[in-house]
Structures are given as C-alpha cells and as structure tokens.
C-alpha cells in the first residue's frame, strides 16, 4: 500500500513519538508513505477562531500540494489536522463558488479530489495483518480514548459511530489487549486550552484519568496529539487538580501496535512521555 502522508506540526515537535511510531509501524506493515512536500500548518484550533477564509485556505494549500504530487489518499495522523482538512474539503465541495478565491490565495489549482484518512482507518485496513504479526501481545486493560475530532462532527468526519465508537477497541483487541467499557471515549479533554486555560484542561482531562483508573485501565490509548499532550504533558496539573497521584500512562495507538509487533520501544518514542510507560503486574498481564 502507498499512501500520502501529512504529519502536521505537532508531530514535528511535542508529539514526535506519534510521527516516529506511525512511520515505524506502517513501515513494518509494508506501507509506503509519501510525505506531502513543503506542507504548511493546517491552522487547526486557531485559524477558524479568527478567520474563516484562512481556515479554508491553509488546508486547501495542503490538499492542492498533494494533488500536484499525484496523491489520491492522504493520511493525517493528527485528529485535528484530518478534521480541518475534511472540513475545508467539504465546505469547498458544497460551495464551489469559493474555490476561485481560495485558488488565488494559495496560488495553485485546487480540485479537492484527495481522500483524507485518519490513522485508525489505515490501521483498520491492516488489522488482520497486525493480528498475524503480533509477537508480543499487549496484554493490558486499555481505556480507548478517541476524543472529539476523530468522530465529530459526524456529518463531516463520517467515521465510526459518534458515541461509543468501536474501531480502536477492535484494534487493541487484535493485539491482545482488553478494552475497558467506559463512558468517556469521546468526552472533550480541553483540547486547545492546553496553554491558555490549563485549569480547564486539568478539570476535563482529570475526569478522564480518574474514571479510566477507576474502571481498571492500565493505560489510556489515544490517536490524537492534542489529547495526548493534555493527558501526558499536563499530568502534573491534573494530579494537582484531583489531589491524587495518577501514574497511568497515555500512549498512542501506534505505539501500542508497535510494541505488539515487537518493534524497538525507542524507535516508537516510548521514552519521550512525561508519564513513564511502566506497568504494574496485572491479572491480564500475568495471564499471558
């Protein structure tokens, strides 16, 4: 399988391990990634707040670059990026009269033909292969956290089901993990308030961490860099807010699969987390 790749800004910085683990896992599964050349930021979380035109033009430039490179399908692992790309693509499809202005802004033709996929969609296609290649089953109890942007708004993303989604649960099952039944799979973590309103992030993410622990999870698995930042980078604020110390790690789904496939933890960026990825001996683990 060959697929276009749009890593997005977070994957170059604060979420490097998501980029590393995505590349490592997909390479191990024989997927060839073609990075969109000279890509720009999609404008996520800020552009739409301040300027609607800009929130269309930034993703449009990325899509146009991909089209020029002959890419028909783009993987955007970051949930925020894939959401923004889809939103812009759909708005321009619904309002073709806006395309001319956007083309003028980005200085190249725009057709909007490339299909945008998220990391769970790509992994989903490879699920049988992943299950077959699993050498070190990830025998943990997992709280799968999808967040907002992967499943909402359903009219835009049209992925999985908007409440209680299942794709990541099926994926972790394929590598030997046990998903816990919990109600907060798609509750908001505080997203873009990571820097500005850390208090809100602590409260919203705190609710998630606390409930995941309560329901017996060993690890929270995510597929969005913003969610990960809030659950990992902001853990001290969370613990401070809760007045409890929670050491439950937050991992990217690609890291979980990478470990199960037997890839080098360092290549997967496991060491980059603020909350160290360490597990107590649990019943599920000892059963293996």
């Amino acid at each position, binding site marked *: 399988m060959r697929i276009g790749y749009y890593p997005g800004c977070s994957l170059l910085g604060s979420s490097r391990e998501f980029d590393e683990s995505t590349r490592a896992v997909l390479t191990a599964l024989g997927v060839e990634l073609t990075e969109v050349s000279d890509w720009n930021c999609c404008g996520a979380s800020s552009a739409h707040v301040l300027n609607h035109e800009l929130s269309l033009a930034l993703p449009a430039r990325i899509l146009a670059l991909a089209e020029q490179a002959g890419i028909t399908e783009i993987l955007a692992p970051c949930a925020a990026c894939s959401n923004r790309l889809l939103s812009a693509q759909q708005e321009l499809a619904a309002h073709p009269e806006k395309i001319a202005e956007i083309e003028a802004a980005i200085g190249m033709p725009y057709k909007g033909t490339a299909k945008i996929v998220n990391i769970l969609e790509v992994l989903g296609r490879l699920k049988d292969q992943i299950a077959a290649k699993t050498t070190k089953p990830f025998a943990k109890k997992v709280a799968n956290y999808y967040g*907002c942007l992967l499943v909402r708004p359903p009219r835009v993303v049209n992925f999985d089901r908007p409440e209680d989604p299942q794709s990541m649960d099926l994926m972790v099952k394929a590598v030997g993990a046990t998903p816990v039944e919990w109600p907060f799979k798609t509750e908001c973590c505080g997203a873009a308030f990571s820097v500005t309103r850390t208090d809100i992030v602590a409260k919203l993410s705190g609710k998630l961490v606390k409930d995941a622990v309560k329901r017996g999870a060993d690890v929270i698995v995510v597929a969005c860099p913003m969610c990960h930042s809030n659950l990992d980078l902001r853990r001290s604020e969370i613990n401070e807010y809760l007045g409890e110390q929670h050491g439950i790690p937050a991992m990217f789904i690609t890291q979980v699969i990478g470990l199960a496939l037997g890839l080098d933890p360092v290549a997967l960026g496991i060491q980059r987390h603020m909350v160290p990825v360490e597990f107590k001996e649990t019943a599920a683990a000892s059963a293996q």
Partner: protein
Amino acid sequence: MSSGSHHPNLETLAGRIEAGTGVKLAHCYQCGKCAAGCPVGDEMDLPPCQVFRLLQLGFPDLDEKVLRSEGIWLCLACETCSSRCPQEVEIPKVMDFIRGEALKRGIAHPKSKDILSFHRAFLDSIEYTGRLYEVGLVADYKLRSRHMLKDVMLAPKMYIKGKLGLFPHLIKNRSGMKTLFKRTMGKG
C-alpha cells in the same frame, strides 16, 4: 408566483450569522441539550442555549450581552453539542462567528485576551514560517499575555524528552504563505 427563497436580513446580527454560517437561529427550539452536554457548560456565564435565546430575539442590547460574554470564548469546538442537537444546529460555527463580531466591535470579554493572544501567536507563527513553531508560539504567547512564568518548569523537561526543537521548521515557499495570509486575513 410564490417565492420560497429566503434572504437573511443583513441589518441584524441574526441575519449576518445566517449569511456567514448558514445557521438559522430560529431552528433552535431551546431544548438545552447543548448546555446539558457541554464540557465547559458549567464554566460559561452564558451556556450555548442562552446564547441562542438572546440572539433569537434580535434586540441589540441582548446581542451585545452575548458579544460581551466570556462563555463564547470558552467554546472548545468539541462539537458535542452539534452532533447531539436534535435540530442539527451547528453551534460551534456560530460561536466562531460571534467571536469575530465581538472583536470587530471591540467589546470582547477581557478574559478573552489570553485565548486571543494564543490564537494570534499561533497564526503569526505559521504566517512567517509556514509551520507551527511551538517554542516560538509559547514565547510569543507569553510576551502577549504577560504570563511570563507559566510553564517555565515544563520546557526543560520537554527539551530533554526531545519534544522542543530550538529552531523553527521553515517551509520553502514562504512568500506563498504571505500571499495566502494577505488574501484571506487582508494583512501583509
């Protein structure tokens, strides 16, 4: 003979919202499901259904009450409300629109300043480099918001974990980026 087409009245805020977002405020029938599910509903001075109620009536003083509120700046665009709304109202789109309106009129809530500083710093960063430079963003945000000490403890840890680059990633076609911003934001 009869014309079913409907043209929003651009004299009113409700009409401009409809023209700008395609959302018809009258579709909201005040069931409160948005407020019930909003993750920051209890933080907001005006929960989303109240924002809609005040705007629906079309009284300028009530419009202004909304534009001056803090709540509209707390919307995370998590889309929980819109995906559960029985009337399929795209509430976050309206939130985006009225924040712009509040800025235009210069009556945005004082507490919006931090949030705004962040977004401005964010866009400035990509305007000049094409991609988001997180270190620059945070530094710029601190200058703008004057929260100098915030997160000082986090940065060294992140640096150790290899999560902070010291230099921005520059894209090649930076002049194209300038044009893009100029044509959309109307600034150069």
